[in-house]
């Protein structure tokens, strides 16, 4: 890594801090009983989605999971819409049909994952296939956890991606636990990269708590994909500094692991780097953090102003409506009805 510009440094730090604080606020909303469904956060894992998605071009596509909020934010999803989705409000990207970050926004190049997380991997391949089909020089970033790599869909998809040399980067967020299952009960090999190598995919293990390490590895993988040289798998090693979801106290995780990984906090590490290399001053950082707090509060205020969906809309959108214009791909469609919603 040569040098981090002030612009890039600010953007990465801002995104990671916004992800951290927004999720922290969302956890509080859960504790207040305002969020009724699951809350899945990526505390301690912010560097992975931030350091990779920051490099995408407007026509590229990301397929983030629920611990990759920075990817949603970097693609332009307004923070208030994330909160609105958690709150089940009408103006969230799913209009109350789904919760947490089970959301997508084709105009922003975000493809939704689903609860059976590995299902996103073959779907992400299809997006990459469409770039190949249209001879479009774009790439897909597909994120998933360590648990997803035990699923058949994942294995089928990795093999398919390798055979077709798809323009995709597989980003495994190895946070050591899939709900309560540690990686040692997930696989008999040591690393996710050991699994992917069997498919002929170049792999790299990356310090997932070092945003610049992620940035650098993703830069190479994206360049490979864009040149038509095929997929790369990055195993971003990190730790889930929370339970599986907000209801889970994670008593099954030895306390010392939390202590160990707390010292590797990606935000504090990057802060230190920026100060040491004089990219940003303490004052710059304090101002940036103050801005983040204001953004979070504004997001919650705006989300809470959004009404709940009307039960009369229950059956809308199971199938396409007759008046929708289907002659254009979704990404190019303008939908007069929901002009205010940048996701649809």
């Amino acid at each position, binding site marked *: 890594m040569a040098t981090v510009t002030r612009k890039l440094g600010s953007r990465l730090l801002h995104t990671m801090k916004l992800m951290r604080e927004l999720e922290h606020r969302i956890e509080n909303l859960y504790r207040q009983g305002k969020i009724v469904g699951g809350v899945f956060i990526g505390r301690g894992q912010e560097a992975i989605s931030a350091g990779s998605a920051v490099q995408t071009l407007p026509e590229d596509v990301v397929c983030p999971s629920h611990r990759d909020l920075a990817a949603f934010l970097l693609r332009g999803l307004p923070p208030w819409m994330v909160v609105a989705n958690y709150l089940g409000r009408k103006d969230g990207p799913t209009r109350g049909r789904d919760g947490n970050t089970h959301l*997508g926004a084709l105009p922003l190049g975000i493809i939704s994952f689903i609860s*059976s997380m590995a299902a996103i991997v*073959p*779907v992400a391949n299809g997006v*990459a*296939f469409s770039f190949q*089909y249209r001879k479009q020089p774009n790439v897909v970033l597909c994120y998933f956890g360590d648990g997803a790599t035990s699923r058949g*869909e994942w294995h089928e998809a990795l093999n398919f991606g390798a055979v077709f040399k798809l323009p995709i980067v597989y980003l495994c967020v190895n946070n050591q636990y899939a709900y309560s299952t540690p990686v040692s009960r997930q696989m008999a090999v040591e690393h996710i990269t050991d699994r992917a190598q069997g498919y002929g995919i170049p792999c790299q293990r990356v310090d997932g708590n070092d945003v610049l390490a992620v940035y650098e590895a993703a830069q190479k993988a994206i360049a490979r994909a864009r040149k038509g040289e095929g997929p790369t798998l990055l195993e971003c090693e990190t730790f889930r500094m929370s339970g599986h979801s907000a209801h889970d106290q994670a008593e099954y995780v030895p306390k010392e692991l939390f202590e160990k990984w707390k010292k590797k906090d990606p935000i504090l590490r990057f802060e230190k780097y920026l100060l040491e290399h004089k990219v940003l001053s303490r004052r710059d950082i304090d101002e940036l953090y103050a801005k983040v707090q204001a953004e979070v509060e504004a997001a919650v205020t705006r989300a809470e102003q959004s009404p709940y969906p009307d039960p009369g809309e229950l059956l809308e959108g199971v199938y396409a409506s007759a008046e929708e214009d289907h002659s254009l*791909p979704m990404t190019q469609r303008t*939908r007069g009805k929901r002009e205010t919603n940048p996701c649809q």
Partner: protein
Amino acid sequence: MPVMTYIEAIRQGIWEEMERDDRVFMIGEDIGAHGGAFKLSAGMQEHFGPNRIVDTPLAENAFVGAAIGAALMGLRPIVEMQFADFISTCYDLIVNYAAKARYRWAAGVPIVIRGPSGGGVRGGPFHSNNPEIAFVHTPGLKVVVPATAYDAKGLIKAAIRDPDPVLYFEHKLLYRRIKEDVPAEDYVVPLGQARVARAGTDISVITYGAMVYVALEAAEKLAQEGDGVDVEVIDLRCLVPLDREAVLATVRKTSRVILLHEDTRTAGFAGELAALIASDAFDYLDAPVLRVTAPDCPVPYSPPLEDAFLPHAADVIAAVRRSMAY
């Protein structure tokens, strides 16, 4: 009008759609150089190239997922399931991903998943199934079950142009047994419109797929054998969307109804039709609604067993006589 087999009609429909819209491509196992297990795509890869007739690894999740992703980006994939039975391997992607995407985040998934279903060819437990009902029961999917060559072409074209995920279950027994006049030009059979396969006045047999021919055979025998019963046969053509009005209209007309399908009995589509008729046409009924279906059993291989499994004209005739005697 050229005479065409059922399989040729499907192939022609796909061919025409691929000519008119370069977003349409077909993906599946052994469909390229080999032309598919039933040769539906023979010669298509030479014409359209390997980018549009796409051979894949033998992994249904991988290629169904790829089709879903490509559809999200505005392409129009047709997935060939080599045998409809294999669709169970990718249930998650179809039911949890494709079917729910529009509802969850307004993302249309215009894919067609098509493949040979049905028995009668000694295919055994893994090459003979009628898996439609799982998908009928999944909101967000459409389910097409063509019986004639004319419909096979018109419905595949409608399915490809449809903005939602469509499961198109061909019946392999009909592939080369059914030959009829099929227009060489472009036409579409809209999804959700049933067809009166035989007009009659005394009793209705409501069915779809290969069982349409079993119903017609029964109707002819009943007409000839001095029963004096004039049977109406309704070919549903699509299970989702269902032409409810056509179902109710025939019940109002004849007041007696037999529900016939090759799929197994419990929670099969006949149960749904029976409930619809009971709630919306009860006053018109002169006899109990009867079902003729396969029994609740896997499709067996050996000829005497498979013959005992499949519904035949004799079963329909027996049901008709029971209904008429009520």
